[in-house]
């Protein structure tokens, strides 16, 4: 009977909090969006499922050994942890916050105490620590993305890099928005948090995850979810803005065919980019370094087996761990917050502003080049969201003129946007990191 009761007291049904219940619903909604609506499923399926796992009551899969020890709160363990943390309180919740704020040495000591008491890190916590907190997973995914990226269209028309620059305005406008909301007293974001939120406007998953791991790890869940969700929403968010800012005549502009780009140019490009990063912005070196490395493996033609692995087995493995790890940050106590709402609102603003800035820059360039060289619709592709945004440009071009294939032209700003947001990430890590 005692055992029966103990199983009931340890069951999820008995212990579930409203927050956990709600977050499990959120996880199910993410799975629905990923599976039925095809919202970036490669990330949102693991994130959604990870979110459900993270919120299973009493399982503690997303928690560290210390958090698990404080959750079960056996008095002697709490006492030992309080001593290690140098705290006078014995309240588990307070101790948890003291633990969060303490430094690396204290973390290590507290972790040993919790392990001595028989608690261990949850599996998702381990995945998060190894894959994400170390920064490794986003960098490896960026390497794989580099190995999948063809810079041909960009090299054929390098001026499209300006479009990739302009669209990053969405990032910085959002930072300003976040601090503005804070100034108005509606929200409470630090400059680091504002920067991490802004990067959603980069429309680039691994960059967003990398930056928020560095600047605001507690917001990682909300930032990653909104980055991927809005990337999936690009076909809905961008078209009205693009139509509003362009005339029918502009949308009908047919761009001249792209020149042939030689193999050698493609080999040199990642090296040139890497050297420029090295000379100007070392803080972007990890992100763009791995990206250029992946691209060089792709183009150099002598390490095809490494390039294949980077594009397949390796990126898939890392994606599984990254997704589950990000999902682990969807635990109720970290996600259910007014801040998350602010992040969702600011994220969509970031996408909209970036899209507008890209289109306007394309209009400006078109004016400066005589009015018939650049279809402004390719400007929106500068936000990245590869290759979705380029497809949107193509679709609107076809709507205006059924012979107007913009896809290859839009791929230039599209990959430029990846570079642009990685540079923006470097600047933000440099200034507020």
């Amino acid at each position, binding site marked *: 009977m005692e055992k029966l009761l103990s199983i009931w007291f340890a069951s999820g049904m008995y212990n579930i909090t409203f927050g956990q219940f709600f977050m499990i619903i959120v996880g199910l909604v993410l799975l629905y969006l990923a599976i039925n609506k095809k919202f970036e499923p490669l990330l949102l399926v693991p994130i959604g499922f990870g979110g459900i796992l993270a919120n299973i009551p009493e399982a503690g899969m997303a928690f560290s050994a210390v958090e698990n020890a404080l959750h079960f709160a056996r008095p002697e363990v709490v006492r030992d942890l309080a001593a290690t943390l140098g705290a006078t309180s014995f309240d588990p919740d307070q101790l948890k916050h003291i633990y969060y704020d303490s430094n690396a040495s204290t973390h290590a000591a507290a972790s040993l105490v919790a392990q001595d008491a028989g608690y261990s890190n949850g599996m998702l916590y381990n995945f998060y620590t190894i894959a994400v907190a170390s920064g490794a997973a986003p960098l490896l995914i960026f390497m794989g993305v580099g190995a999948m990226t063809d810079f041909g269209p960009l090299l054929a028309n390098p001026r499209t890099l300006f479009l990739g620059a302009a669209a990053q*305005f969405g990032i910085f406008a959002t930072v300003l928005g976040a601090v*503005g909301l804070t100034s108005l007293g509606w929200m409470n974001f630090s*400059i680091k948090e504002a*920067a991490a939120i802004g990067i959603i406007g980069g429309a680039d998953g691994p960059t967003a995850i990398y930056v928020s791991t560095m600047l605001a790890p507690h917001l990682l869940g909300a930032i990653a979810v909104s980055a991927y969700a809005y990337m999936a929403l690009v076909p809905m968010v961008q078209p009205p803005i693009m139509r509003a800012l362009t005339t029918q005549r502009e949308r009908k502009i047919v761009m001249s065919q792209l020149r042939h780009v030689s193999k050698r140019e493609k080999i040199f490009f990642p090296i040139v980019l890497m050297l*420029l990063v090295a000379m100007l912005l070392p803080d972007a070196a990890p992100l763009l370094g791995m990206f250029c490395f992946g691209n060089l493996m792709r183009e150099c033609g002598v390490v095809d087996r490494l390039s294949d692995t980077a594009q397949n087995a390796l990126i898939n493995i890392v994606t599984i761990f990254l997704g589950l790890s990000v999902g682990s940050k969807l635990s109720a106590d970290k996600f259910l917050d007014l801040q998350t709402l602010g992040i969702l609102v600011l994220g969509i603003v970031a996408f909209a502003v970036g899209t507008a800035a890209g289109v306007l820059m394309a209009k400006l360039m078109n004016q400066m080049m005589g009015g018939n060289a650049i279809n402004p619709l390719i400007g929106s592709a500068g936000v990245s969201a590869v290759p979705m945004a380029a497809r949107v440009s193509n679709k609107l071009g076809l709507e205006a003129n059924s012979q107007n294939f913009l896809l290859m032209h839009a791929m230039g700003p599209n990959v430029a946007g990846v570079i642009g947001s990685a540079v923006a990430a470097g*600047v933000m890590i440099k200034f507020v990191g």
Partner: protein
Amino acid sequence: MDELLSEGLSLMVFGMGFVIVFLTLLVIATSAMSRIVMRFEPAPVPKAAAKAKTMSSNPADDAQLIAVMTAAIHKFRNDRKGQ
């Protein structure tokens, strides 16, 4: 609060400025690189494209190929029946 706002503003100005400067330099560097490469390797290589075509694993082509082959086999069988 005001300080935060000014931090945000300066991050915006310097950040956006830096992004533009960086990508402008990248445009210049890339263009220069392309020009140098093309000087040393003037004619574009149409061979590569041609080769790519023959080795195409385009699904549409494959479907056509399968259709043709199926027809061929079908004809062969009928021939055989007729014998």
